[in-house]
């Protein structure tokens, strides 16, 4: 009787008598780093790193005692790099330490924080380099050998404690474990690596306020070889807005906020060429094909292309101002997110310019991996002109880059995610719409489309190198699905965000 009564009362119902509010979420879907081994996710509450493979259960990566603060993939590899904050407790009276064994139990004023940069592959730590202090940004060289850790003051989540050195970055050799603090100038926040003829990393260019520093990574110790001052007047401040290196690594091209000039720094001859542009640049793209740079302007309806040998400009007149550049293989696509409806394809070899007219103004555009199509998300706009239905709704347009046509689509919600998959004679685009539970899968070659209904609403999409689509779900406990585009087979993993939740972050020994 007792058992029956208990069952009738919902014995197996999950109890939920209280309401708790936690500062940190269990997982960060936006931190997803897809690799061939699975998807890596940051678990902010546990301060841990989870690996969610397609064919196995999710597991934690053993990072030692510490809190994961940043997770980044290294492009072109299956390696992810984790910034792990380790905390020691150094109270005035050492007897206090007997009662303190976790980070949470140590008062803020006694905490001594250091950071480890750890390279992880297939769920195991490959190498680890320790650096003093806190850093919130990492940049890697193309060969994944070097990393630079620095403070990005534009990051709203940056919390500074204690004394902070505002003029230094940390250079790390991930293969040898060597790290070194290098003084580069005030508020350094842009880093570019120079490569040699065989692709090996040879140097580093760092932009800071009014200065550009070049560091030779082939010499020891690493030190600033040349400093370029962007102004000779100490009272004036020059804030670089973008930096790109030419493919041979000889020139650093730098645009400056509010200026219609381009600084071309010769890193070999140690000189600065000031190039006069048509206006204030809105985007700049260094193209390996053709060894040229493309510049667009938000106040001029032109696009300029200059070579890296003689710095001679070709100017193309447009109907509308373009402020965004997408680089393809031998061509660029120009579009504007300023409310204008034109888009262009510019062939860098022939100079042929093809104009596309979109139905609604785009706010985002991506190139398909084959370069045959570009897909734009468009926003609803007021006005008429006989296409009120289209104007009133968000949309998507597919630009045929081999021709000059576009295919417009109405969307149910604003486009917020787009991923491509190429293979088996297919080229699929997967579209995520705001507040819409299903995904829209479009074969760009045939125009065939399917909708994919999901039990748990999607939150983000991406794709793996093998063409599998990756879908993260809007769930608190962690959810990711792997979608095979040709068969529609869906493999899901849920609940992994609770891994390590109860494990406290313990202290490390004080240095």
């Amino acid at each position, binding site marked *: 009787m007792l058992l029956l009564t208990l069952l009738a009362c919902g014995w197996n119902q999950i109890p939920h008598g*209280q309401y*708790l*509010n936690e500062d940190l979420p269990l997982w960060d879907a936006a931190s997803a780093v897809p690799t061939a081994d699975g998807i890596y996710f940051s678990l902010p509450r546990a301060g841990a790193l989870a690996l969610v493979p397609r064919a196995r259960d999710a597991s934690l990566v053993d990072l030692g005692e510490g809190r994961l603060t940043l997770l980044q993939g290294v492009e072109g590899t299956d390696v992810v790099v984790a910034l792990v904050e380790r905390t020691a407790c150094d109270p005035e009276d050492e007897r206090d330490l007997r009662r303190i064994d976790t980070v949470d139990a140590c008062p803020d004023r006694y905490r001594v924080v250091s950071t480890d940069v750890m390279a992880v592959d297939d769920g195991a730590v490959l190498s680890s380099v320790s650096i003093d202090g806190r850093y919130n940004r990492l940049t890697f060289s193309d060969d994944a050998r070097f990393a630079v850790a620095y403070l990005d003051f534009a990051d709203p989540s940056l919390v500074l404690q204690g004394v902070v050195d505002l003029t230094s970055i940390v250079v790390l050799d991930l293969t040898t474990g060597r790290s070194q603090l290098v003084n580069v100038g005030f508020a350094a926040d842009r880093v570019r690596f120079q490569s040699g003829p065989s692709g090996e990393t040879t140097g580093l260019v760092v932009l800071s306020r009014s200065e550009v520093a070049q560091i030779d990574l082939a010499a020891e110790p690493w030190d600033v070889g040349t400093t370029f001052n962007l102004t000779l007047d100490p009272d004036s401040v020059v804030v670089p807005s973008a930096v790109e290196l030419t493919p041979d690594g000889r020139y650093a091209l730098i645009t400056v906020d509010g200026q219609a000039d381009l600084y071309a720094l010769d890193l070999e001859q140690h000189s600065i060429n000031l190039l006069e542009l048509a206006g204030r640049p809105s985007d700049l793209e260094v193209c390996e094909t053709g060894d040229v740079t493309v510049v667009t302007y938000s106040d001029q309806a032109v696009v300029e292309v200059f070579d890296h040998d003689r710095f001679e400009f070709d100017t193309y007149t447009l109907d509308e101002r373009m402020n965004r550049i997408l680089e393809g293989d031998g061509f660029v696509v120009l579009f504007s997110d300023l409310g204008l409806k034109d888009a262009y394809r510019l062939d860098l070899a022939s100079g042929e310019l093809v104009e596309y007219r979109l139905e609604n103004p785009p706010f985002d555009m991506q190139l398909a991996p084959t370069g045959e199509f570009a897909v734009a998300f468009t926003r609803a706009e007021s006005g008429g002109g006989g296409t009120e239905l289209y104007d009133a709704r968000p949309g998507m347009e597919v630009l045929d880059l081999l021709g000059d046509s576009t295919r417009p689509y109405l969307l149910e919600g604003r486009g917020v995610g787009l991923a491509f998959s190429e293979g088996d004679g297919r080229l699929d685009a997967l579209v995520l719409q705001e507040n819409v539970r299903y995904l829209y899968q479009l074969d760009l070659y045939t125009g065939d489309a399917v909708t994919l209904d999901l039990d748990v609403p999607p939150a983000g999409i991406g794709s793996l190198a093998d063409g599998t689509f990756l879908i993260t779900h809007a*769930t*608190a406990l962690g959810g990711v699905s792997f979608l095979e585009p040709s068969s529609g087979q869906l493999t899901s993993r849920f*609940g992994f965000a609770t891994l390590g*939740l109860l494990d406290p972050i313990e202290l490390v020994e004080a240095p």
Partner: protein
Amino acid sequence: MMLLALSSALAVEAEVAAEVGTLHNGDPAYDAFVRGNGMPSAGLRLGFRPRAEKHFPVGVLASWQHSSRGSDVSSVGPSYTAAFTSDTFALGPKVDVDLGGVLAPYVTAQGVLMRGLARFDDDRSDNDSPGQTRYTGVAPGVFTMGGIEASSPDIPEMPLEFLVFVEVGYGWVAPLELGGLGSMQPGGVVVRAGTGVRFGRSGR
């Protein structure tokens, strides 16, 4: 009825009681499920002792306690429910002193086996929501308690007597390993109180 039959067949005193209690859980890991350090519980207690001409001071207690607490947890993004449930089985001797057939102060030391179940659900309205996650673990422990028991006066015509008791002590449980979730170690002050019936009392 079964206890009554058992009591007669084996010539033992047998008691059964419903009890409530709480076990301290100061492990910060418990904060993932609820605020507060108590694990309130309810359960059953069985007691046996040899029937003799006079009061026999040593018996055996066996008990089961069920504790279940949970919360709706909100943070950045969607919310979820987190709950921790435990079943504690205890067995051990009890030594008491009979004070006039009505009061009996006692001490007891019991070996404990605790089964913990951590549950998470991101949609309580759906019994099959894919995000449901469970972790279980079992840990041994020891409870030592002292208490006092009050019985109803001896009425020869009655085959049973009523009893109430309250006990306080200290409970130690080994860390409960809950798979990939981590571990938790409840333990500390334990308080229990209950009421029940006893069959086949000594001296009858």
